Structures are given as structure tokens and as C-alpha cells.
């Protein structure tokens, strides 16, 4: 009987400790981010890894998301005889919701998992300890470049996703389903406002922080060898994806 309560208490305490460690981890990363000197070469390398190399993936997923939206929304709008609003419907759902969220999920799968695994392997092969023993901060070499690169790459990738998606919707709506291209684009211009675009960017930046935080944290606190690395990577991806959707809801309820 006692052991059940013990286990419950242990679980609660572990969860609390995890949250606390994550908070301290984030605060330490922020501290090392604002503290010069910045490892600019490493920042560039991470932007290249998280950003540049994700472009093909983002273009592909963005294009198909826009095309699916074009098809689905056209099908729905036709029931009301409101096909003319296909453009705004596609553009607003992309810019306000799907662009930031889907691009963040794709980057989590591509780059987030790799970051968690890389730092995890450095941890279990004691390279992180080696850095510390040379009195070099692992935060300056590993975390800060990732944080800056995520903050920088996510909004840009989100914007690329939106634009490609809008043109994907254009291909389906205008080229395949025969809407006029003037209706499509002028509708978008009438209904999309600057506020929608900035909301989209803010969301992307927030998701960038979440993905960085979860993936680096999981990698940094990896234990127990190869199995630990695999567990850290899986947890990082699952947790980051879930947090993106949860955080998305709260951000939306504040923004709308």
C-alpha cells in the first residue's frame, strides 16, 4: 500500500524536477546567448543545418499542403456557391495556422531529432564533459548556436511554407479547377492583413524556441548509453511535437 503512494510521490517529484531542470536549462541558454563572444561560425553552421537544408522539405510539404487545401476548401465552398473565396480561405488558413505549425513539425522531425541525437551522443561519449573540463561552456558551443539558429530559421521557413502553399493552392484552384487567377489573388490581398503575417512570424519564433529547448534539453540530459540516446531522441520529437500543438492553442487564444 505504501509503495503505491511512494511511487506516485516519486512520479510527481520527478515531473517537478524535470520542469525545474528545463527552466534552469532555458535560463542558462539565454544567459550564454546574451553573453559575448558569440560563436558565429557555429551559428552559421546550425542555420545551414536547420534552415538551408530544410528548404526542399518545406517546399515539398508546403506545396502539397496548399494543393490539398485548394481541393478541400473548393469542395466545401462550392456547396455554398462561394468558390470566389477560395484564395482568402487557403491563404488565411496557411498563414494563420498551418504554415507555422506544419513547418515547425517538419523541422522537428528533420533537425530536432538530429540535434537531440548529436548532443546525446556527445554526452554519452563524454565530449560534453571534456568541454567542461577545459572550462569551456557547453552552452556556448552547443546550445546558444542552436537557439539563435532556431529563432532565425523557423520564421523564415514558415514564410517560405506560406508562400509555396499559396501558390500550391493557386495551381489547384486556378489551373486545375478553373477559378480566375484575379479572383484568387485579389481575394487574398483583400482579406490578409499585416497582423496575420506578424502573428504567423511570432508563432514560428515561439515554436523555434520550443523545439530548441526540448531537443537540446533531452540531448543534454541523456544517460545510459546507446539506448539512452534513442530514448532521448524519441522523447524529444514526441514532446516537441505535442508542445507545439498545445502552445499553438494558447497562442491562438491570446492572438485572436
Amino acid at each position, binding site marked *: 500500500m505504501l509503495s503505491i503512494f511512494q511511487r506516485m510521490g516519486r512520479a510527481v517529484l520527478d515531473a517537478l524536477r524535470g520542469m525545474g531542470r528545463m527552466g534552469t536549462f532555458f535560463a542558462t541558454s539565454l544567459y550564454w546567448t546574451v553573453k559575448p563572444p558569440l560563436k558565429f*561560425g557555429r551559428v*552559421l553552421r546550425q542555420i545551414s543545418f536547420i534552415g*538551408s537544408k530544410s528548404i526542399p522539405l518545406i517546399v515539398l510539404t508546403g506545396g502539397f499542403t496548399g494543393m490539398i487545401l485548394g481541393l478541400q476548401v473548393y469542395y466545401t465552398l462550392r456547396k455554398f456557391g462561394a468558390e470566389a473565396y477560395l484564395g482568402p480561405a487557403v491563404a488565411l488558413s496557411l*498563414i494563420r495556422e498551418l504554415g507555422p505549425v506544419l513547418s515547425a513539425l517538419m523541422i522537428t522531425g528533420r533537425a530536432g531529432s538530429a540535434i537531440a541525437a548529436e548532443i546525446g551522443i556527445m554526452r554519452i561519449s563524454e565530449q560534453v564533459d571534456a568541454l567542461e573540463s577545459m572550462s569551456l561552456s557547453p552552452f556556448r558551443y552547443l546550445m546558444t548556436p542552436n537557439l539563435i539558429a532556431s529563432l532565425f*530559421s523557423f520564421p523564415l521557413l514558415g*514564410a517560405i511554407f506560406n508562400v509555396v502553399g499559396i501558390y500550391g493552392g493557386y495551381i489547384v484552384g486556378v489551373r486545375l479547377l478553373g477559378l480566375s487567377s484575379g479572383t484568387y489573388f485579389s481575394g487574398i490581398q483583400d482579406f490578409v*492583413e499585416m497582423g496575420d*503575417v506578424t502573428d*504567423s512570424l511570432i508563432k514560428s519564433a515561439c515554436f523555434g524556441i520550443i523545439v530548441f529547448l526540448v531537443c537540446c534539453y533531452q540531448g543534454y540530459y541523456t544517460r545510459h548509453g546507446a539506448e539512452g540516446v534513442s530514448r532521448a531522441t524519441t522523447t524529444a520529437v514526441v514532446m516537441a511535437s505535442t508542445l507545439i500543438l498545445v502552445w499553438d492553442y494558447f497562442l491562438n487564444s491570446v492572438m485572436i
Partner: protein
Amino acid sequence: MSRYSVEVSVGIFVLVGAIALGYLSIKLGKLEVLGGGGYNVVAEFDDIGGLKAGSNVEIAGVEVGRVTGIALDNYQARVTIRMNAGVELQDDAIAAIRTKGLIGEKFISITPGGSEDIIKDGGKLRETESAIDFEKLISNYVFGKV
């Protein structure tokens, strides 16, 4: 990967991203980067209905400017319009608030006048026509004021 190719790939990424961002905010979000040419005109309405800052201003259905500000002045709505450069307005032009379709958004439709005098920057459109209020219209009809 050498430092050079890393920098090139980051450069490509930033360029593509900046183009996408610029397209979203300038083309779609209507962000005014350049104040550009153009001039301001003021018009006073009794009732502007659902007109908002950013609404279109049209002559013969062609967009010639945007509403930039709405304020209350002596219990009348004072609307500031930014007209595109090259579009001239006579001082007896009529500004009317119209609706796109039945439930569409409000815009200002300007009917050119015949006067010789052209409105200058900061000038005022004297002739205005308020938004049509459907409920008022119906109540006028029902209570026999038409």
C-alpha cells in the same frame, strides 16, 4: 563542409526566406515600406457604417487609394484618405460609402466632378454620401416614410 559552402547555403536560405517574407508582408499584408507618392484628402461623413482604416477607395471600380485614418470630429466621422499620385480629384467630386455585394466589405467610391479646381494635399472633399443602413431603409419603408 567548408566554411565557404556553409556561408553560401546560409546565404541562399536567408535570400529565399527574405523574399518569401517580403512577398507576404508587402504584397499580401499591404505593409507600406515606401511612403511613396500620393496625397491626403479629408472627407466628413454622417455615418461611415463599417468602413475601416485600410478600406479601398475607388473611382469607376479602380483602386485609387486607401483610408488611412478615421476620427470623430464635431459628431461627424472624419475620414482621411491617401490618394495615389497621379489621380486628380476635382473639389466637387462626390465621395460615397458603398458595400461590395450584399454582405461584402465597405469601400469609398468617388464620383469625379466637373469643377476646374483640383484638390490639393490636405484638402477636403465637400460632397459626401453616407453608408446605406439597411435597417433604417427597411424601417422607413415599414413606417411609410418613403
